[in-house]
């Protein structure tokens, strides 16, 4: 098991450097002057250009620039040139909110998704199965911003069941609607994955053996079928996190949740490239860490993994 953990951590290192390097290259290795590009449609003054050039150490060789940039990002030094706040401050302020939103979304996804998937899988072809399939299909075909607007309009404006935008301090109750929207993004996949997993596991020899040795259905379903079906679902959570990040950006923007996603949303709207780049870099680093954690969790769920290469 130790080796598995060590290996996983070791594998994370090239991914960490590789992905941050790629983001860095996307900005600084493109043809043309990267600083000029950062200004987008605007025409900057020579002083502004010089300031940014210094900030990004454009006088240094490429590789050195990368490590300096990495250092800056980790210390939160790259900030907006326009509002003048340090990214560090912004993130410290907004991360907890996004964390709460994300947690709520993941919880909703898992609870509803796994239960719906389990029932669909056990009663394959039944009414519940077909209905769930259709509903999840409909939800997944709406891009997140469409779903967000629809939810906002129906539940916020028309029915008045929830506040259309989130209030200050983002109380849990206000976060519920955006969390549901966020959960909807991946809910369909959790359901199908659980369902397929349950169906496949149910056909396994050890399930038949479990019944054969005298266990009741009430024991076989949770202890043998569900427990084993959790393995692929766990892997999905890791990939889901990437989708969650993007979804959060849009959802927080639409519902005005004061989180990291909203900062990114506003930065994109303003074409504030330096801030975009720093937030994206931080999010990618978080994603890498989450992936490692999920992989370790996978090792707990499936003991076979711990010993195989």
């Amino acid at each position, binding site marked *: 098991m130790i080796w598995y953990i060590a290996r996983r951590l070791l594998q994370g290192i090239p991914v960490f450097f*590789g992905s941050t390097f790629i*983001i860095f290259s*996307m900005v600084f290795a493109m043809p043309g002057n990267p600083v000029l590009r950062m200004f987008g449609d605007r025409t900057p003054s020579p002083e502004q250009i010089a300031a940014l050039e210094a900030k990004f150490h454009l006088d240094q060789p490429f590789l050195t620039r990368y490590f300096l940039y990495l250092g800056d990002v980790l210390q939160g030094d790259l900030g907006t040139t326009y509002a003048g706040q340090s990214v560090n401050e912004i993130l410290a302020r907004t991360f907890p909110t996004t964390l709460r939103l994300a947690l709520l979304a993941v919880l909703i996804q898992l609870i509803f998704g796994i239960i719906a998937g389990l029932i669909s899988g056990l009663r394959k072809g039944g009414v519940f199965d077909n209905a769930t399939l259709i509903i999840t299909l409909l939800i997944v075909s709406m*891009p997140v911003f469409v779903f967000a607007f629809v939810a906002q309009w129906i539940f916020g404006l028309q029915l008045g069941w929830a506040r259309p935008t989130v209030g200050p301090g983002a109380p849990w109750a206000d976060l519920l609607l955006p969390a549901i929207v966020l959960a909807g993004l991946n809910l369909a996949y959790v359901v199908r994955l659980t369902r397929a997993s349950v169906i*496949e596991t149910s056909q396994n020899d050890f399930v038949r053996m479990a019944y054969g040795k005298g266990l009741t259905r009430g024991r076989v379903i949770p202890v043998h079928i569900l427990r084993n079906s959790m393995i692929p679902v766990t892997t999905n959570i890791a990939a889901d996190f990437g989708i969650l990040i*993007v979804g959060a950006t849009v959802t927080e923007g639409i519902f005005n949740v004061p989180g990291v996603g909203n900062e990114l*949303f506003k930065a994109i709207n303003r074409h504030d490239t330096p801030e975009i780049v720093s937030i*994206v870099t931080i999010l*990618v680093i978080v994603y*890498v860490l989450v992936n490692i954690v999920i992989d370790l969790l996978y090792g707990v769920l499936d003991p076979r993994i711990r010993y195989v290469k």
Partner: protein
Amino acid sequence: MSSKNPVRKAPRFVAEVDEGGLGAVDAVRVSDRKSNLWLDAWRDLRGRWMFWVSAVVILFIVFVAVFPGVFTSAPPNDNCILTVQTQAQAEEFGVPVGTRISNHGPLPGHPLGFTKQGCDVFSRIVHGTGTSLSVGIIVTLIVAVMGIVIGAFAGYFGGWLDSFLMRIGDIFFAIPYILAAVVIMSMFLRERNIFIISLAIGFFAWPATARILRSEVLRVKQLDYVMASEAIGVSKFRTMFTHVMPNSIAPVIIISTVGLAAAITAEATLSFLGVGLPANVFMSWGNDISAAQGSLRTAPQTLIYPSIALSVTVLAFIMLGETVRDALDPKARAAR
């Protein structure tokens, strides 16, 4: 021999030999239906209503994209006015002078009303079809080509090449492709076009496809017919193309169909965020939805109609992907 003392002597029973005799031990199956993976899959698809519905919708969407003129004569960008000012315009729209066209409801010749800028909603939707579809197709092609090539080489040749390519895949996979696209599009703000946006999305979306193909290749590689092929004298390269690839491609087809839907969604999301295709040059549903945000309370239809168009398109491709997956899934096939 069992060492138990026999409890009893069982009665001897011999069944009658039935008329048909025992039959040949190893007869060729009589069925006339030819059967292999693709034929069986097609037969399965043919029987599903979801397949036909999605196929028809997709064909319709393609038709709209290629021949927008059939559906609307109103040019999407040129005819936008905020208020009716001249008599000529009044006659054209059939409303009195001074009427505010911005966010107006339906008028003859303009069945879905007008956007905030006074442009024809229906016309914009029709013309936006081509954009979404083009980006979707180009992205899918990029992802398929990159994913297949990388996944196949990694899976078939193994060893250090495999480790190296998979590491690269991990690195790209660690960056959510929409975020990567956001960064790229922000850097190329002045040069945005369909090709750039497709590349931006596709260049980071290939790892999933590569992984799927690689695991399929790993599975097929173990099968006896691959070993037999090499033992016969077929070169490793040729074995990969004639035996391994065709048998590994099915999951890629599934993921590409769903991927097309995801690509369309990605383009719309980028446009919504403001880093998609520039609105003045390209019609994009994402742009329209973004522009209509502010009117959610006052004129929700300006947001809802393009949303419907987008959702229906995405839904059609996802439904197609579902049915294709069911048709190609080996476990479901075994049960047939």
